[in-house]
């Protein structure tokens, strides 16, 4: 067989990560299999001719009206009916039940979005709801007005009334305040905060609580972290040696600040894609933050060992993350072929590719930083060029001078005949050479503050790469936004620029059908656990349709009209009766929003809450991560950078890597920093329990919490009550206090028996009680 069959080097990296073909095939296969079952087993009663109970299953529209919730088999009544053991409930009511395999196929079909055979085959992608302009919707009329407290509720109540349901009542004030605190700042309320809220009986107590939390710096730390999931924030580059990027935390802080300042979302978008261009067009006091904002682009994944090795994949990451994060589009597919479902063409992909190929990315180091002594490059000064240039020029001259010096001395050494003299000269040269290397490796003058950011490079239009392969360039694609949304005209790029600014402005335009909807959906998702569109980074044909399309549009219109204010949106949402409902006892997912969904705390909230309750949380903003000095860096793929910096700061400030994940955070589903994450998983695994029962972290925190309880009061029942209130945010019942007393007594007795002194046993008993509270379901779940 010929050699050419074996792509030598990078080639089959086209190993595309994108088998849309497979997807299409499987999906239509699934659709037709499911349809066959429905046809054979259900249509005789719920089909085109007969509609028992006014219910039919013979079109996607009818099926998804109530019994099928696309993407969520667990919540779909159809599945419950098929599985039910209740003779009143089970379907079909007579005859043979569906086999397990058949039910599981129906389940998979629903989870795959319940595609309908015809609609999958002939879907008209131009008609897709998400590409259309937002509707000018008005809140609908509802029968029951008493429950409503905001226009949001009209939409939700209207949908519920369609199925003869209604919003649930308002949750207890304690539950509400705890929920609010976690939602807005990612922390439980302190005892004092809760007390002060409960004792405030004024009309607007809740609104003022919302304002207070939104004004807290902890708000940005919470919501900034949600954003960091999307922009695959990491403190390292992701190359084979995973080089650290000390400067990138400026971007993290920029994100947190932006949320705290309630920066209009359109500005936030533009700055992250093109802040450097805005900044250099009009240098002012925002210069630094605008440059820093482009960390979004700079943080694109790096590969392998050389600078910018596999650059086409780095740009692929930029395009993919841009598409998912801002537009809910999966653009990556079009690297190798036109998108199989969405009307995204390769021409669109390479139109965007040219924009980023006209952009200079920074190089933070990789194996060749070590093996070839390459300097870091492309870091952007956070001062306008006229101020930074002086320093840059001095740095260049200094390096050149040192270079010259080293070269001259080297020549002298070579010319020298006297061995002893030669040795002495070499010894003298060594420190000069080291000094040169240190200076050069930094890549910028040490006194100049720089950002891990991008800058415009020479503008080019890039050829389409056939099969996504750099070795197969085809025709040139003009730089522009995707045609199906932006029209035929290429971007009107002003001046010798990359086009990032024009792309950003097009994305951030109030008339872009996707941008506002995608962000509103994300904010809703973080208040309710799920967005209206479950696939919150995929609004395309394969994404799921919104559960409340009108409400999504209404909120998106409000969002834009209120100056893209995220905080205004929070107020709208948490002020609604929908958000303030009681949670359902069963914890079942309710897409119609007739109750509030119970949720487990996320990784950051778990750690921060435990530290807070133990009074060990340091709520200050930390200094830089303690990375070693840049001139000492030496990492290779054989000895990659990997470390964990312990701290008691909020989890948003923990150092995160791409090649290895933080041991605590990974345990509780914090995202992989290599790719944009829209929805986190929510796992329950025994390793979490091992950590909570046995880790030294939990020992320390439960001991600290125990000390707090013992200091709180001399009275045992008061201590127990205080422990319960501090973790469960409700008063302890007399039974619970009795049981606590009993527990402490038994534990103490047993501990003394095991050889502890009385005071030691006392402390151990409280630590154990504290650990039980901190690991309980009531602490971990939010009602």
């Amino acid at each position, binding site marked *: 067989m010929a050699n050419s069959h074996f792509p030598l080097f990078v080639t089959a990296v086209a190993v595309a990560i994108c*088998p849309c073909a*497979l997807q299409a095939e499987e999906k239509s296969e699934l659709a037709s299999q499911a349809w066959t079952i429905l046809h054979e087993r259900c249509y005789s009663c719920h089909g085109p001719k007969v509609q028992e109970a006014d219910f039919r299953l013979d079109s996607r529209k009818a099926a998804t009206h109530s019994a099928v919730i696309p993407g969520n088999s667990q919540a779909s009544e159809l599945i419950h009916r098929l599985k039910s053991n209740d003779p009143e409930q089970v379907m079909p009511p007579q005859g043979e039940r569906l086999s397990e395999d058949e039910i599981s196929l129906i389940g998979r079909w629903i989870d795959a979005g319940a595609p309908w055979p015809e609609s999958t085959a002939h879907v008209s992608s131009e008609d897709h709801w998400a590409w259309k302009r937002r509707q000018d919707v008005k809140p609908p009329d509802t029968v029951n007005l008493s429950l409503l407290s905001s226009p949001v509720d009209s939409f939700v109540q209207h949908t519920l009334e369609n199925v003869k349901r209604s919003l649930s009542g308002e949750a207890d004030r304690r539950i509400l305040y705890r929920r609010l605190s976690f939602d807005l700042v990612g922390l439980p309320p302190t005892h004092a905060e809760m007390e002060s809220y409960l004792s405030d009986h004024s009309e607007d107590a809740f609104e003022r609580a919302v304002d207070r939390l939104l004004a807290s710096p902890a708000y940005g730390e919470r919501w900034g972290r949600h954003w960091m999931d999307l922009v695959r924030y990491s403190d390292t580059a992701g190359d*084979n040696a995973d080089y650290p990027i000390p400067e990138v935390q400026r971007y993290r802080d920029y994100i947190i600040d932006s949320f705290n300042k309630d920066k209009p979302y359109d500005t936030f978008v533009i700055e992250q894609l093109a802040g450097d261009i805005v900044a250099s067009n009009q240098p002012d006091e925002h210069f630094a933050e605008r440059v820093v904002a482009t960390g979004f682009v700079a943080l694109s994944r790096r590969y392998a060992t050389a600078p910018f090795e596999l650059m086409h994949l780095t740009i692929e990451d930029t395009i993919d993350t841009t598409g998912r994060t801002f537009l809910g589009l999966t653009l990556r597919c079009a690297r190798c072929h036109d998108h199989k479902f969405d009307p995204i063409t390769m021409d669109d992909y390479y139109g965007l590719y040219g924009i980023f190929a006209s952009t200079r990315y920074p190089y933070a180091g990789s194996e060749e930083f070590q093996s070839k002594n390459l300097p870091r490059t492309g870091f952007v000064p956070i001062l306008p060029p006229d101020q930074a240039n002086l320093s840059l020029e001095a740095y260049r001259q200094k390096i050149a001078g040192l270079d010259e010096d080293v070269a001259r001395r080297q020549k002298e050494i070579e010319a020298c005949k006297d061995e002893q003299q030669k040795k002495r000269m070499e010894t003298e040269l060594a420190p000069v050479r080291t000094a040169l290397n240190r200076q050069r490796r930094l890549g910028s003058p040490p006194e100049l503050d720089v950002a891990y950011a991008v800058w415009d490079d020479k503008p080019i239009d890039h050829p389409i790469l056939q099969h996504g392969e750099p070795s197969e360039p085809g025709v040139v694609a003009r730089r522009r936004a995707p045609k199906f949304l932006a029209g035929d005209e290429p971007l009107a790029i002003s001046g010798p620029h990359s086009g990032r600014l024009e792309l950003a402005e097009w994305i951030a335009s109030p008339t872009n059908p996707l941008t506002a909807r995608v962000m509103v959906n994300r904010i809703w998702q973080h208040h309710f656990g799920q967005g209206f569109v479950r696939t919150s980074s995929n609004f395309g044909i394969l994404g799921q349709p919104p559960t409340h399309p009108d409400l999504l549009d209404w909120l998106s219109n409000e969002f834009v009209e209120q100056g893209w204010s995220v905080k205004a949106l929070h107020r709208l949402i948490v002020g609604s009766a929908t958000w303030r409902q009681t949670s359902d006892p069963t914890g079942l997912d309710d897409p119609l929003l007739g109750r509030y969904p119970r949720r*487990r705390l996320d990784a950051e909230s778990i750690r921060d809450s435990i530290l807070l309750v133990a009074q060990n949380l340091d709520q200050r903003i930390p200094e830089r991560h303690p990375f070693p000095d840049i001139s000492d860096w030496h990492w290779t793929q*054989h000895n990659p950078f990997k470390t964990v910096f312990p701290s008691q700061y909020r989890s948003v400030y923990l150092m995160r890597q791409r090649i290895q994940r933080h041991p605590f955070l990974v345990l509780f*589903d914090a995202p992989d920093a290599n790719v944009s994450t829209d929805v986190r998983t929510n796992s329950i695994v025994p390793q979490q*329990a091992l950590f909570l029962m046995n880790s030294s972290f939990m020992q320390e925190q439960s001991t600290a919490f125990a000390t707090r309880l013992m200091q709180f009061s001399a009275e045992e029942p008061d201590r127990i009550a205080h422990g319960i209130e501090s973790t469960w945010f409700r008063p302890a019942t007399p039974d619970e206090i009795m049981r606590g007393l009993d527990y402490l007594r038994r*534990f103490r007795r*047993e501990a003394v028996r095991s050889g502890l002194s009385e005071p030691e046993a006392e402390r151990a008993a409280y630590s154990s009680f504290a650990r039980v509270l901190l690991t309980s379901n009531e602490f971990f779940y939010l009602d």
Partner: protein
Amino acid sequence: MTLSRRQWLSLLAAGGCSSVGVSPLLFAAEQKGAHVLAPKRTHHSPRARQLVMIFLTGGYSHVDTFDPKPALKAKHGEPFPAVGLRPEEARKQPLLGSPFEFEQCGESGLWISELFPHLKTVADDLFVIRSMHTDIVEHFQATLAMHTGSATIPLPSVGAWLSYGLGTYNPNLPSYVVLAEHLPYAGSQVWDSNFLPPIHQGVRILPGNDPIADVKSPALSMTLAELEAEMLREVNRWHAQTRPGDENLLARSASFESARGLMEIAPDIFDVTNESSFIRSGYGIADGDTTSIAWQCLMARRLIEQGVRTIEIIDSGSSNNWDAHGNMDDHRPMAKRADQPIAMLIRDLKQRGLLDDVLIAVCTEFGRTPWTDSPTGKGRNHYAKAFTCLLAGAGIEGGRTYGATDEFGSSIIENPCHVHDYHATILNLLGIDHTRLTYHFAGRNYRLTDVYGNVIPL
């Protein structure tokens, strides 16, 4: 007390749960098929039920191990139009004859080099694939590819896919255990579950005294630990009373029971001193050794008996491995470490009647160049266009080879087997159709073999 896999299966079948550390709760859940790790049905009748993957880090040389090339010796030192690590490194390089002697072994006459005197004794159990190839010739990317099918973006590992597709037999142990003293290239990404639910993630056992993180209770006594456990159960019951039917709450409570099961059985499982000295010396475990690949291989057998679905052994980390750029003699100490334990693992499983139900896959990330790494060197560079991996067990008839390379070992001339094909074959042997084991994520279905993969005939 440990149970053989068969005993486990019969236990499962009988619905019994009296054995060591099996939590009644999870066991009951498993009976109903409710536990996410409960064994699942295969696509077709499997040839093996469990997998031991032995990954030899750094890229062992195919032409010095299982793919003899007399022509290399004959033309030793002659320049060859070599293709190196990167295109710009393509240049003429002198061919390098193997410094090792090859011999035909067993009844089958399988060729094995002097590096593996012990593997020679089980030659008739080895199925040698001489036509492996991969895409990117960097350790990091190739290691990731061998584990996840993807050389670039991290995706779920083969063990995670097996856990997701097949579940496991012992609910008290992770379904995918990784025995690795040192972190390999690409770190923990190689056993990550990525977008698959984290329960399928490989759990790294650090050979040594603390094999699983936080598995030791800090409690002063069992009684105190049990008191605390009971208190936690009780407060979770109070909480659940007003929230009936919330399965997440129940599952989270159950995960503590499962963790306690693990705490109970772990010390026993990881203590090899209760193995006979005949067995220990058979693997080559010295007294007190808890880190060597010999210990890892014995542990793999014990975990097989415990019903773990996938066990992966990683013999060395991202340095001090098979990456012999300077001198092929550096393969000697690496082979010496691995040879006897791997051969013994095969023999040990066989004598226990387990080898037919266990697939052993011995692999590496890529091969090494038939020419030297530098004009005067004695080592070899990385090579993606041809390398050799092994399979054993699973009722595969051994003593055979599949695929072939040219006279220098530089190109595949027969039956190429891409990494995707290797994965497809492994899944196939375990009863899975690799095209049907999919997971829906980020808007589409993913699988281990992407859109590729052909099962090789066995």
